[in-house]
C-alpha cells in the first residue's frame, strides 16, 4: 500500500472503527483511515456516500446535530478527539473548516478574517492583528483584490472571493488541519481554478482534507484519495493509483463513470 517513493509523512489523523448514526440510520460503517500531514487528501464518492459526514467527524462539527452519534476511535496526533477531556471548541480551532457554500459573516472583510484571532486571542495588539489578517489574506490569494476595501462588507464580494475569504478566515485561526467540504461546488470554473491552486499551495504547509464530487478535481489537487460508497471506505490509495489501478469493483465502476 505504500508505493509512494517519498519518505513517510506524519499521520495527522488515525481513525479506527469509526461508525456514525443519524438516529436509527447508519451513515458511516466501520471506517479505518490515516490522514497525513502536509498533504492534500481527497474524499470522493457518489452523493450520500457519507464523505461529508466523515469529514465533519474530524472536527466534531457533528456535535451540533442532536441526533448524530459517533463511535470508534479518531486520533489527532495520537490523542482521541472524542475523549471527554477534549474540548470540541479547542479542537475546531486546531482543525479549521471551509464549507460548501461560502458563508462570510455579515461583517467587514477585516472583521471576518480577524474573527478567529480575536476569539482565540492570537494577536496581542492591533499591529499583530493587522499583520495576521494581511498574511492570511495573502495566503488565500485575496490580499491584492481587497487590500483597499478591508472595511467593506464581506458579503459584497463575488462567490469565488467569498470562498477565498472563508479560507483566509480559517487560516487566520492558525489551524493545523484544514477541512474543506466541496469548497468549489458553488463557484464558477474560473473561481474554481483559483481556489484549486490555493488548495495545492496550502497542502505544503497544512494537512488539508477535501471532500469533492469532482473526480477531476481530486485528480488535480490531491496526493491521496479515499473512495466512499454507502458509508463505507472502499479504497484509499495515492490519487494516481485510485484513478489508474483501482482494485475494488465499485471503485472501478465509479472512476470509469459507470455510476455516481
Amino acid at each position, binding site marked *: 500500500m505504500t508505493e509512494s517513493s517519498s519518505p513517510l509523512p506524519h499521520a495527522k489523523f488515525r481513525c479506527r472503527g469509526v461508525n456514525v448514526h443519524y438516529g436509527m440510520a447508519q451513515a458511516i460503517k466501520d471506517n479505518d483511515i490515516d490522514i497525513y500531514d502536509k498533504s492534500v487528501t481527497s474524499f470522493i464518492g457518489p452523493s450520500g456516500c457519507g464523505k461529508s459526514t466523515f469529514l465533519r467527524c474530524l472536527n466534531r462539527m457533528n456535535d451540533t446535530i442532536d441526533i448524530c452519534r459517533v463511535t470508534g476511535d479518531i486520533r489527532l496526533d495520537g490523542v482521541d478527539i472524542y475523549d471527554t477531556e477534549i474540548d470540541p471548541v479547542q479542537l*475546531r480551532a486546531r482543525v479549521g473548516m471551509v464549507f460548501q457554500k461560502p458563508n462570510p*459573516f455579515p461583517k467587514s472583510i477585516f472583521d471576518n478574517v480577524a474573527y478567529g484571532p480575536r476569539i482565540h486571542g492570537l494577536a496581542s495588539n492591533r499591529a499583530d492583528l493587522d499583520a495576521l489578517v494581511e498574511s492570511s489574506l495573502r495566503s488565500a490569494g485575496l490580499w491584492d483584490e481587497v487590500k483597499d476595501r478591508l472595511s467593506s462588507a464581506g458579503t459584497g464580494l463575488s462567490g469565488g472571493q467569498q470562498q477565498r475569504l472563508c479560507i483566509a478566515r480559517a487560516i487566520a*485561526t492558525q489551524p493545523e488541519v484544514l477541512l474543506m467540504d466541496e469548497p468549489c461546488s458553488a463557484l464558477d470554473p474560473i473561481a474554481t481554478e483559483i481556489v484549486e491552486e490555493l488548495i495545492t499551495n496550502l497542502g505544503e504547509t497544512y494537512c488539508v482534507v477535501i471532500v469533492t464530487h469532482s473526480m477531476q478535481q481530486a485528480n488535480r489537487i490531491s496526493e491521496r484519495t479515499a473512495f466512499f460508497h454507502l458509508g463505507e471506505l472502499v479504497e484509499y490509495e495515492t490519487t494516481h493509483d485510485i484513478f489508474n489501478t483501482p482494485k475494488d469493483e465499485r471503485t472501478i465502476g465509479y472512476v470509469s463513470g459507470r455510476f455516481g
Partner: protein
Amino acid sequence: MLSWVALIVTLMTAGAFVASRHRARSVAHGDLAALHSRPVYHGAYTALRVAIAGFGVLIVGLILSNIGLRAALFAAIPDSLGTLSQIERDLIVSDGVAIAAGEVASRTDAAREAVGARYNTLMMARNIGLAVLTLGAAAFVYLRSITQISVPFRARNRTEKIVQGLLMVSAGIAILTTIGIVASLLGQTLVFFSEIPITKFLFGTLWSPLSGVHSGSMDPDKVGAIPLFAGTLLITFIAMLVAVPVGLFAAIFLSDFASNRARGIIKPMLEILAGIPTVVYGFFAAITVAPFLRDTGAAVGLTISSESALAAGVVMGIMIIPFISSLSDDVINAVPQSLRDGSYGLGATKAETIRKVILPAALPGIVSAVLLGVSRAIGETMIVVMAAGQGANLTANPFEAVTTVTVQIVALITGDTEAATAAGPAFTLGFTLFCVTLIFNVIALRLVRKYQESYD
C-alpha cells in the same frame, strides 16, 4: 324596523336563488347540458344581485340619512337661544335624541323637547323611506335578472365577475378601516385645534381639559399634554427595561441552548403569557403587584404610591416579554445555519457565535421586535387604566403615580362629561397615539422586511 327590512332582503335573496334556478331548468326544457351555465349559477347570479342591490341601498341610505339627520337636528334648535358654541349645540342635540329615545338627558327644556320631537318625526320618515327604497331596489333587480335567464346566458362568468368583485371589496376593507380611523380621528382633531393652538397642546405642562369647561369652551392653558407624554414614556421605559432583557435572553436560550424537550415546555408557557387578556394583567397589577411593591418599598423605607408607574410598567413589561421573545426567536432562527457552522468551524463557542455573529446578523430583526414592543406599550390601555393614576403628574419618579395618553382617553370618553365636549381632547390624543405608533410600526415592518429579504 330596519332590521326587519334586512331580514326581508335576506329572504328575498334566498327566494331569488330558488326561483332563478327553477327558471333556468325550465328554459332548458329538460336538456340541462344545453345551458351555457348550470342552473345553480343562474340562481347564484340573481341572488347575489338582489342581495347587493338591497343591502347596498340600505347601507348607503343609512349613511346618507344619518348625515342629513344631524344637520336637520342642528337646524331644529330654536333661534331664540341666540348664538351658541359648538359644544352647547352638540349638547342640546344629544339631549334631544336622548329625550326622544326615552333615555336620561342632562337637562330637559322646551328647546330640547323640540329637537326630540323633530328627531322622532325625521326618524319615522327616514325608516319608511329607506324601507320602500330598499325593498323596491331589490324587487326591481330581481325582475330584471329573472327575465334575462336564457339558454345561452353566461351566468357563470357573470357570477364569477361578481364574486371577484366581492373578494376585491373585502380586501379593500383594510384600506377603508385605515381611512375610517384617520378620518374620524383627524376630523375631531382639526376641530379641537381650531379652538386650541397646537403648540399649547404639544408643549403645555398642565393637563386638566375639563375643568371650567361649562363656560362653553376649554382653557387653552389646561390642555398641555406633556404630562401624559412623559407618563406614557416613563411607563413604556420601565416596561421595556423588563421585557427586552428577559425576552431577548429567553429567545437566545430557546434558539441555541434549549433541548427539544425544554423548548416544548417553555414555548407554550410563553404563549400562555401572550394569550392572557390585558384586563387580567391589569387586575394582577392593581391587586397584587402594586400592593406588593408598596409594602416592599415601605419595608426598605421607600414611599411607593399604590398606583405607581413602576407597578404598571413592570406588569406591562411582563405582558410584552412573550412578544419580544417570540419575534426575536423567529429572527434568530432565521439566521442561516451556515453562519453558525462557519463560526463553530473556526472554534468559536456558542456564546461567541451568538454574541459576535448571530446577534449582529439578527440585529435589524431584534430592533424591529423592540420597536413593535414599544408601540404596543404606548398603546396599551387596560393595565394603565387599572394600575396607573388619573392625575397628570409631571414626574420622572417611577414610585409616583403618573397618567398616560390611553388612560386619559378612557377617562374622557367614559367620564360623566357630555360626549361631544370630551371628544375633542380624547380624539386628539387618539390621533397622536395613532401617529406615534404608526411611525414605530412602519419603521419596524420596514426593518423586518429588509431583514427577511437579506436571507431569502
